[in-house]
């Protein structure tokens, strides 16, 4: 029993010390005196310290003294204390995460799509390229030819060329590319040409585009009825067996075609 009371003192001391409680400057001295009074020598006192420390170590105390109501109450205190600390940590962590997510969101909207003119431009281009409203072609060819400057005569026999590029300023490179494209399309759909030479023409035609994934919008009766990549569409033009008419082109700053609209009748 006497050892038990010493252990209790040691336990209180250690717990208070570990939890950062109020300083107990004379606690060790009191424990030492109490131990001497109860006839416990220094060696045994050290052992008691060790025992109590082990009991307080997480994972061990629970299994060791579950039957002791005193020890149990100490463990509960400890658990409560740790639980409180964990809860505090969780709150801090959640707050930090929320703060960072908010900052990231603000950063994204500000730098990613908000005030960044490049990003804005990209979004606008994307939306124009993604969905051509079905009524998009309200401007008919007749309207185009009435409003846009006459396209230079490119080659005889080429299907009606609507070189309307009102959405982009037409650079000399773009004009040259447009002219070449008309000729390439004409040759690609010419079934009398050998396939090998049409393949070569296709490879040359692709170079007029910004990339192989540039979109080709297919129109029928002034309504968009299909969409393909230029890489696929040039294959289709070669093999589907009928001619197409170029309706519209969009260029990038390098004069490369970024989007092509064609009419299939």
């Amino acid at each position: 029993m006497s050892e038990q009371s010493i252990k209790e003192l040691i336990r209180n001391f250690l717990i208070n010390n570990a939890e950062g409680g109020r300083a107990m400057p004379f606690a060790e001295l009191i424990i030492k005196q109490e131990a001497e009074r109860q006839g416990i020598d220094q060696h045994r006192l050290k052992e008691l310290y060790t025992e109590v420390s082990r009991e307080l170590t997480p994972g061990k105390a629970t299994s060791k003294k579950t039957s002791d109501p005193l020890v149990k109450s100490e463990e509960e205190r400890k658990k409560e204390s740790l639980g409180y600390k964990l809860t505090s940590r969780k709150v801090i962590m959640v707050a930090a995460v929320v703060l960072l997510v908010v900052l990231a969101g603000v950063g994204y909207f500000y730098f990613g799509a908000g005030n960044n003119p490049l990003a804005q431009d990209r979004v606008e281009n994307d939306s124009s390229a993604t969905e051509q409203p079905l009524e998009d072609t309200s401007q008919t060819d007749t309207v185009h030819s009435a409003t846009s400057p006459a396209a230079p005569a490119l080659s005889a026999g080429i299907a009606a060329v609507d070189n309307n590029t009102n959405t982009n300023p037409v650079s000399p490179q773009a004009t040259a590319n447009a002219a070449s494209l008309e000729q390439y399309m004409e040759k690609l759909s010419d079934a009398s040409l050998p396939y090998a030479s049409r393949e070569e023409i296709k490879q040359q035609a692709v170079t007029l585009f910004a990339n192989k994934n540039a979109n080709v919008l297919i129109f029928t009766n002034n309504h968009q009825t299909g969409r393909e990549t230029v890489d696929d569409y040039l294959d289709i033009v070669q093999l589907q067996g009928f001619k197409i008419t170029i309706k519209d082109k969009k260029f990038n700053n390098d004069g490369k075609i970024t989007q092509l609209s064609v009419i299939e009748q």
Partner: protein
Amino acid sequence: MGRLHSSQLLSSKTKGLVALWILLLCVCMEAMAVCEPPVEVCAFAETEELTADDLSPEQLEAFKAAAQRKTAALNNYIKIISNKSEKEAIRSKSIALALRLFVDDKQPVQVSSALNESVKNITIRQYLNNLKVLPYRRVDIRWFDIAYVREFKKGRDGKYYAVITIFQEYKGFSAEGQLLYTDITQKEIEVVLDRLTRRIGDTEVKEWDVLLRGIRVVETKS
């Protein structure tokens, strides 16, 4: 000894702090990833959709014409595929392009013969592959009188369905140019007009598109 115990608890505190910092680091990295310029695909995916649930008569007319054009294109691909003097590369490419006209490569196709009046069901892929190995030196397959037998009607699933009829003239020749087999078959091709989400290159779009479905034999005459 008390210090020893405190240091043990301190180490668990340290572990907690380290875990917290790792978590914060991860969140920061995630945030940096979010702040990177969005891939074009994402931007496109968020753009507006075609708003009308119902297509206008003019739009339906446009898609009717598009379906007829696709049917004519299919006939042209079939001609190329069945042409044994054509290069393998162009025949294979024609198969690939022909398959793209259909909802998928498992759409059923009925094939018939005037010799035994049997009708067999195969997939469109099998049908197109079979065209490459027909038992004739030369084959002429011509479709004519491509017309609608049923106009587009909206189904309960929101898609529009129509049926196109075609007449197919089939001629098989020997190496000497002798006509070995001929028949004329009336076929019906089901057409579906659906608003599909597709990836075209780097672009993901949701647009109306008209595709071919099964082909069935109505009648075969020699």
